[in-house]
């Protein structure tokens, strides 16, 4: 039995329920999804919480809770503009080619 693999499946199950009503889906790129979920399991084992693997912890709870995966609700305007979350774990439901989506920082989004 491989607990990490089982936990990755469980996170996928739990997160699917959250992202679906937000208009997102898991990236069609299975390799990146598998890699990112594995990092989240490692972060959960270390911190007890599956933080975003691509954003740094600030060390205070208020900020850190905003990067608990899926962090889409806390970064909605930014992610909607680039049609993906920062990691690329999630993409808009209408995206079929995730590699075509540029990773643009929020500060460079028009109107920020």
């Amino acid at each position: 039995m491989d607990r990490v693999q089982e936990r990755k499946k469980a996170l996928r199950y739990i997160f699917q329920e959250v992202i679906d009503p937000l208009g997102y889906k898991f990236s069609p790129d299975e390799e990146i999804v598998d890699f990112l979920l594995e990092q989240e399991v490692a972060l959960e084992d270390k911190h007890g919480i599956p933080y975003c693997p691509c954003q740094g912890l600030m060390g205070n709870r208020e900020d850190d809770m905003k990067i608990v995966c899926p962090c889409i609700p806390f970064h909605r305007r930014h992610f909607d503009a680039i049609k993906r979350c920062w990691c690329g774990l999630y993409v808009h439901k209408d995206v079929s080619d995730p590699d075509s989506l540029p990773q643009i920082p929020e500060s460079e989004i028009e109107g920020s």
Partner: protein
Amino acid sequence: MSIEVAKLSDIAEGGLINVSVNGSEIVLGRYEGKIYAVEKRCKHMRASLNMGTLNGYILTCPLHHMQYDIRSGIALSGPIANVGVPIIDIDSMHLASFEVVLDNGKIKLEL
């Protein structure tokens, strides 16, 4: 030996109930129409898992949110952090699971 412990109609989809068999405390849960049985006490601090939640096949402890796969008893994640208990070896915290037999609406456990 198979022992009748409840009726299928006793558990709604996503529901959890507690049964006691020969002194053993067991939780029954229903996922996708099937019944699964695991030991009742969370391996972390012995909370009653029948008081937790069943989201799909994921059984969550009500006390510190440790999660298990109810189909196998595998511990999926440890308790949430910052509860005064160090992160522990999750791989040693799986629940015992029991074989369930459905017989004309009766739930029986193979013990």
